[in-house]
């Protein structure tokens, strides 16, 4: 009887699991599966040939321009990651070091932009980076520039700056959370054992917050890698990225199989980065 009851509850659990996962499967996994299939089709003339082949993948690999854009985008994502690591770590450290109400205001200031529309944020950046924008005005005021520069908009710099600024919270928050999880008694213990403030940071705070930095870096890298909106809106003709290349296959070029194949390549790189980050962010001493 109890066996029957447990089988019943097992079936019930399975049912609820199916209900819970039905929507994500329908709207995330199925489209991805569709892309996977599309990637193995190819285009001849204006028609999609629905038979299995690696032609679309070979088309991508054989197109020097696309491969160059692919590596340039990897470099862009890496730059966004490094810039945000350098900018974000000190901010996270600062927020976790202050006490009282102020820290929550600062955290809120990081979270609020995450709730805003991505496009609005990009347009805001466009206004800041333009030749009459805040950045140029400030540089003119400080005497760094004699006349407004066009270096900040409609090129790769613009894409880099825009992505870095918009994705900074994704770097700061995981680092902040990792810092918060370090018990105060550990830095106390290090001090007690004779460590100077710098040694405490180097030996305790930094290595123990590294998993957070890895997660933040992964967020920035993966988000920058696949983004096509920011390059589209602030990149101009120079700021051409892999995301835009894919986008164009679905639009102007109307080569869905090639676009799908390129998407799958992007997905594999992103998954590899996530897997690597997962390994680094979960070191041996934590798994023990």
């Amino acid at each position, binding site marked *: 009887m109890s066996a029957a009851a447990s089988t019943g509850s097992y079936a019930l659990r399975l049912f609820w699991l199916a209900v819970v996962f039905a929507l994500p499967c329908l709207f995330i996994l199925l489209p991805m599966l569709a892309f996977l299939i599309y990637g193995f089709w190819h285009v001849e003339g204006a028609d999609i040939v629905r038979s299995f082949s690696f032609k679309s993948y070979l088309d991508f690999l054989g197109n020097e321009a696309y491969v160059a854009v692919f590596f340039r985008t990897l470099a862009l994502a890496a730059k966004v990651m490094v810039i945000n690591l350098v900018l974000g770590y000190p901010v996270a450290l600062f927020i976790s070091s202050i006490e009282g109400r102020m820290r929550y205001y600062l955290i809120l200031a990081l979270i609020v932009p995450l709730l805003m529309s991505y496009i609005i944020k990009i347009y805001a950046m466009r206004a800041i980076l333009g030749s009459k924008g805040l950045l140029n005005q400030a540089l003119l005021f400080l005497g760094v520039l004699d006349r407004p520069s066009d270096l900040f908009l409609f090129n790769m710099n613009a894409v880099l700056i825009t992505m870095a600024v918009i994705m900074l919270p994704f770097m700061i928050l995981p680092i902040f959370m990792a810092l918060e999880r370090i*018990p105060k*008694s*550990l830095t*106390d*213990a*290090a*001090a*007690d*054992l*004779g*460590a*100077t403030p710098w*040694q405490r940071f180097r*030996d*305790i705070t930094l*290595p*123990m917050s590294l998993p957070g930095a890895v997660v933040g870096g992964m967020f920035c890298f993966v988000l920058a890698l696949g983004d096509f909106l920011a390059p589209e809106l602030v990149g101009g003709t120079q700021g051409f990225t892999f995301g835009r290349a894919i986008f164009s296959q679905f639009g102007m070029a109307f080569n869905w199989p090639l676009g799908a194949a390129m998407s799958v390549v992007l997905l594999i790189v992103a998954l590899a980065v996530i897997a690597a980050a997962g390994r680094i962010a979960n*070191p*041996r*001493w*934590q798994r*023990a």
Partner: protein
Amino acid sequence: MTAEGRLELIGIDKRYGETTVLSGIDLTVEDGEFMTILGPSGSGKTTVLRLIGGFIAPDGGEIRFDGQNIADVPIHLRPFNTVFQDYALFPHMTVQHNVGYGLMVRSTPADEIKRRVGEALDVVALGDLGGRYPAQLSGGQRQRVALARALVCEPKLILLDEPLGALDAELRRQMQTFLKSLQRRVGITFVFVTHDQEEAITMSDRISVMNEGVIEQIGRPDDIYYRPESRFVATFFGDNNLIAGRKAADDRIDTGLGPIRCIDPGLGEIANGQALSLAVRPESLQLDFDVDPPSDDLINRIPITIQSVEFVGSTSRVLACPSSAPDQPLLVKTPSRMQGMPFREGDPGILTWSAENSVVLPDDGSSK
């Protein structure tokens, strides 16, 4: 006596905002002493330890070591090491690196670190676990790593913040014996914080009892146990009977139980007629069933009725109601017997104790 190795706290005050955590703490710990700071939670004992260690600064008073004020010496330059309540082992370092950390940050040569870490791990019997991470150790092992990490720095003073609190009873007793013998062997001064009075009594050379931010009494364990100076100390250490009364004459006290004789030098300082309390340990009380008249007037005799008998193992706890004050039962501890106790609830008897076996506590106005 020289000031070498002596730790002195002089008039220490500590406040957090409006709350006074410590007021007027005076405490001297001699070189090589095992000093226990004992008190209930919230009494300020850990705050005292953190002040000595340099984690926090006092609002008033002086901390001296070797005769010099060390209040301004930053934490990492004090020759003291702490064993933390949660051990505070570095989770991302192996046992070896944890223990060697204090040497590493002082730029000790690598081969010397290796040798001294090995020695320290041998002292705490963890010689072969050096390669493990803290998460792979049991609670008792972590505790010993924390101890080795402090010992290896050869500090002048080791501060221990309830280090046995997280261990189970059996391991706790083993560690008590181990800590005590270790302290004897290495000769380092230990300042040990605990709320466990049994632990304090068995391990310490001296105990300072804290309550609500002040030190109530400092003394040897037997002094603290048998000669408490305040009601708090009398009741915090094990069971005690407190009998309220007034001084009648030199060694006579009028109480609700009738006149009682008490031989205690402290009684000389109290004026006749003044209110006081008498503390008698339950094991100092004796139950008798013959009703012979007193042969020795240094023995107090009180007729009682047995209210309850509770078997708790090697001893039995008997509540005895004095005939003159049935609402103030006295607790008696008497050795248990295999054959059962020769008395039962409701039996009449006589409670006796020697006039030398009680102490007088001045009435400090606080009710029990």
